[in-house]
């Protein structure tokens, strides 16, 4: 073989081998298939009502039908522009008698009414529901999403897969699973056995009104005082004794225990476990890098964050009607009798329990 040819062949083969991994790069460089900026949400701030607002806009074309059915008491069936089938009810209680369910006990119609809506039990509603009046759901139902212009009440053992928004009060009976977002412009009440992820309302109550009375009345008596003192940085564990008063922000690199009846006029952070005993008042925020346990009859005025797990006992309130706040942790357990003003957000699982 001609040695020049051999060398040329070797160079060409080497060049081809070198170029091989560059071919996809050159193709992408030439075709610009993926050169758009990463999508950054500019328009909204992740508001909890984002989906319910969207749904309200979505069903807007049905307004005329809704009013007509409400006036006449009749029902109307049809299809929205995207092909979704709907059933508009003139009288909400018709849902109890109409053959809504298919053989698999699923209702695949989008239900809408301007009247009060009462739904049968043991049914899966696989499309969104709109109630212009109040909403009362039967036991053991499964819902995709609900928008209620007045009060919304879910029966025992119900499940919501995506979201609920109630303009009025929202109430879930025992053992409901709320997998998505639940919001109300008025209040949310969950009974024992309920699980939740993200809740938002001016007032979120766990348990009956008798059980949450302590947290609500306590709120009226005491108001937070902002702290002006410098923060204290504490290496190792730290204890604020019972009935002690601590002024200023506190950062503890170890475990923190706040004794019964203590008052903290500032924000508190612990790098390890945080234990807040009964009847403690914290004027600022409460942050734990691991777990936090808050005893009974406490009042926390700022945000409450635990990076792993959070437990709150009965009679405790977080935030106030004038100054709503956020309570957040991957896993949250709250006893019946707890009240949160604002947002209660469990990334993995939130539970209302009888007793911790």
């Amino acid at each position, binding site marked *: 073989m001609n040695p020049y040819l051999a060398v040329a062949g070797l160079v060409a083969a080497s060049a081809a081998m070198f170029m091989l991994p560059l071919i*996809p790069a050159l193709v*992408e460089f030439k075709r610009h298939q993926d050169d758009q900026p990463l999508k*950054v949400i*500019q328009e909204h701030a992740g*508001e909890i009502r984002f989906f319910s607002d969207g749904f309200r806009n979505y069903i807007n074309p049905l307004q005329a039908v809704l009013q007509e059915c409400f006036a006449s008491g009749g029902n109307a069936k049809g299809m929205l522009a995207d092909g979704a089938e709907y059933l508009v009810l003139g009288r909400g209680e018709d849902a109890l008698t109409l053959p809504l369910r298919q053989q698999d006990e699923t209702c695949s119609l989008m239900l809408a009414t301007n009247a009060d809506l009462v739904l049968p039990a043991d049914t899966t509603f696989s499309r969104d529901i709109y109630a212009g009046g109040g909403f009362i759901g039967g036991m053991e139902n499964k819902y995709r999403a609900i928008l209620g212009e007045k009060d919304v009440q879910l029966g025992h053992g119900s499940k919501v897969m995506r979201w609920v928004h109630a303009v009025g009060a929202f109430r879930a009976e025992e053992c409901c699973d709320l997998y998505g977002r639940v919001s109300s412009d008025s209040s949310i009440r969950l009974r024992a056995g309920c699980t939740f992820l993200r809740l938002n309302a001016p007032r979120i109550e766990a348990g009956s009104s008798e059980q949450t009375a302590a947290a609500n009345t306590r709120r009226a008596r005491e108001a937070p005082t902002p702290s002006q003192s*410098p923060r204290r940085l504490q290496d190792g564990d730290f204890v604020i004794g019972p009935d002690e008063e601590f002024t200023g922000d506190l*950062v503890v690199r170890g475990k923190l225990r706040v004794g019964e009846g203590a008052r903290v006029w500032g924000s508190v952070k612990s790098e390890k476990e945080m234990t807040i005993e009964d009847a403690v008042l914290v004027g600022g925020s409460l942050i734990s890098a691991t777990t936090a346990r808050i005893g009974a009859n406490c009042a926390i005025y700022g945000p409450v*964050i635990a990076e792993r797990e959070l437990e709150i006992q009965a009679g405790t309130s977080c935030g106030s009607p004038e100054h*709503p706040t956020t309570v957040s942790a991957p896993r949250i357990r709250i006893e019946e009798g707890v009240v949160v003003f604002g*947002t209660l957000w469990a990334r993995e699982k939130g539970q209302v329990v009888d007793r911790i």
Partner: protein
Amino acid sequence: MIYVLYGIVAVICVYTARHYWFTLNRLFGFQRHPYIDIDTADWPPVTVLVAAHNEEKVIANALSALMSVKYPADKMLVVPVNDRSTDRTREIIDEFVARFPGRIRPFHRVEGKGGKAAALKDAMELVDTEVILIFDADYIPGAGLIKQLTAPFFDPEVGGVMGRVVPMNCGTNILTRLLDLERSGGYQVDQQARMNLRLVPQHGGTVAGVRLSALREIGGWNDETLTEDTDLTYRLLLHGWKTVYQNRSECYEEVPETWQVRIKQIMRWAKGHNQAMVAYGLHLLFGKHRATPRERLDGALLLGVYIMAPFTMLGWILALAVFYQGIAPLHGIIAILAVTAYAAVGNMAAFFEIAAAVRLDGNCKRIRLLPFLIMGFTVSIFSVSRAAFSQVKDALTGAEFHWDKTERFRKAES
């Protein structure tokens, strides 16, 4: 000579392991976003500083976006820090002041020391809120960003906060596309992994915030440095304040579109970073302060990232010299491992990190551009090495540093 080469290879191996640790943590570890869920609160008053030096092309976009954010209007004051601009920046700012009375208080600086830190330092006379947020003029904050960047300050341990920067002009040319990949790796993996592992997330000086009491405690802005953000990160750390990174607090920025501008930018970053290394490196590692052992180690490695470029070049030169001197460079299995790490894995780790970041971002096809990053890395290595050498020369001759503003490419709003 051979022992110097061993030393360089060893240090490169440490950085390689660090890249892999971060990437694997980001892919499989526990992800920390502790403050991102705070959407309801008694929001504190904030001051938003917008650093602007000859920013007529971009300042209107930034101010418009800030006027539309979802934060209580009576609790947010925007202070455009117009630093000796000679273009229409002042005029544009004053138009906004007239359009939004009471919401924008301009700081027009006509003289004084150059540089962003010096301008921010002077502008502090207008700041009386505990939370200060900082944006460069080419950034376009989204509706929820101010709340997201303010939320971490409910934690009394947090002194600084940093959001994620996303290039908006990434499709312009090969440089912007490569910078987009680098930014992904730097934020999506590097910064978030440091946050996850409780190490030292770096304050970026824009899409960022600082607590006024912490800033006062550490002595305010340091106008003797080229990168006030790196300087701030370390002074906060040494005083027991945490800087936190919020990966979901994203904001668009404009990246350089020409190599010349990019080289200037990275040289400034390298010089500023090296200043911080000299100023705080030893004290961070061995001094008496509030940083944890893992923060000391990670902080020191972070301080060394830019000095690794001249080290790598030195390693190449030494390897060649050793080879041509006929010295059997390395011995046995350890030698093979070290050379392999240096020649292959060491280089691959950064690529792996960027590939993982792009995948986490959900961008599938741009990952194909990865081989072109060799080009970007080569330019960076030479630019950063040049910066280091010129810095040494400046130190020996006593020359003063000067601050180069990054050129903008966006068309001015009419």
